[in-house]
C-alpha cells in the first residue's frame, strides 16, 4: 500500500512537519529529564550544561566566521565584564564586526 502524493497540500504538510519537529525538540528535554532522578551527579551535569551550550555554540562559530567574528565576541564579553549591559555588549559587538569587516579582516 502506498500513500497518495502530498499533492497541492505538500507545502503546508512540509511546514507542519517542521513545526512538529521543532516543537518536539522544545519539549523533549524537559519531558525526558522528568524521568531522570536528580542525583548530585545529574545535578552537576545539568549545572554545567548552560555554559557548555554557550561555549559549544560560540567557539565553532568563531572558527567558521573568522577573525572579525572573534574580535566582535571578545569585545562584547569585555563590554559585559565592564558594564553588565546586554544592549551595550550587542552594540559594541556589532560595531566591532562591522568595522573589522570593513577593514577586510
Amino acid at each position, binding site marked *: 500500500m502506498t500513500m497518495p*502524493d*502530498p499533492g497541492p497540500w505538500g*507545502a*503546508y*504538510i*512540509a511546514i*507542519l*512537519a*517542521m513545526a*512538529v*519537529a*521543532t*516543537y*518536539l*525538540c*522544545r519539549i*523533549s*528535554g*524537559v519531558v*525526558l*529529564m*522528568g524521568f531522570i532522578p*536528580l542525583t*548530585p*551527579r545529574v*545535578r*552537576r*551535569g*545539568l*549545572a*554545567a*550544561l*548552560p*555554559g*557548555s*551550550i*554557550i*561555549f*559549544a*555554540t*560560540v567557539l*565553532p562559530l568563531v*572558527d*567558521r*566566521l573568522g577573525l572579525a*567574528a572573534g574580535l566582535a*565576541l571578545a569585545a*562584547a*564579553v569585555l563590554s*559585559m*565584564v565592564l558594564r*553588565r549591559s*546586554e544592549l551595550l*555588549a*550587542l552594540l559594541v*559587538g*556589532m560595531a566591532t*564586526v*562591522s568595522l573589522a*569587516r570593513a577593514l577586510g579582516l
Partner: protein
Amino acid sequence: MSSKHDDDLSTGPAPLTLAGMLLGARLVSVLLPGVIVFAVAFGAAAAGKGLPLSEAMVMSALVYAGVSQLVAMELWRPEWTWGAIAGLAAVTATVNARAVLQGAALQPWFGRYPKAVNAVQLFFFTDANWLIGTRYRAEGGRDLGVVFGAGLLLWAVWLAATLPGYLLGSLVADPRRYGIDMVMPIFFAAMIVPVWRGRRAAMPWLVAGVVALVTARLVDGYAFIIVGALSGAVTGALLDDDA
C-alpha cells in the same frame, strides 16, 4: 556554588506572574532589532523562493525557529514527496536539537509547573529566552513568566517582521554586511559573563567548546553544538564538587 539555587527550587512557590512576563519582555527587548532583521531576511528569502505570503507567515507562526526556517528555504521545492517532507523534518530537528539540551538544563525549574503550562510556554522556547531564563535563574529568580513573556514578545515580533521582509524582497539580501548574522553569537558570548561561576565551574565549558570545535571541523551541519554541550555536561557530572 550554583547548586544552592537549585535546592531552593525544590520548595516554595512556582510563580508565573504578569510582572514576570513584563520583565521578560523588557529583558528580551535588546534583541528585537536583530530579530526583526532576521525575520525580514527570512521573509525576503521566502519571497525569493516563490512561497506564497500565506505559507511564509504560517511557517513563521508555527515553526518560529529562525535558522531552521532559513535552512528550509535552501531545501524548498515546488513539488513535495513524502520522502522530501521527512527529509525536511529531519534537517529541522537537527538544526533545532540544541533546544533539547536547553530544555533539559532548565528542567529542574520548569518541572515544577503543570504539564499544560509547559506544553504552552515551551512552544515559545528559543535561544533568546533560554539565555534570558538561564541568567535570571543564575541570579536566583524563579518566575516562569520571565521566560514566557520574553518568548511571546519575540514570537509576535518575529511573525510581524516576516511580512515586510516578504514584501520588500531582497533589500536585506546580505545580512552579513551589517553584522546581523552575529547578533545571536554576540548575545551568546555576552551571556558567559553573568553565568560565570569561577574557573573550576568553567572547566566543563572549555571541554564543550573544544569538542564542539573539533566536531565542527569534522562534521557538516549543527551536530557540533549537541556533541560539545553533552561532553561538557558529562565532564561536569564527573567532576567532584568538593574535590
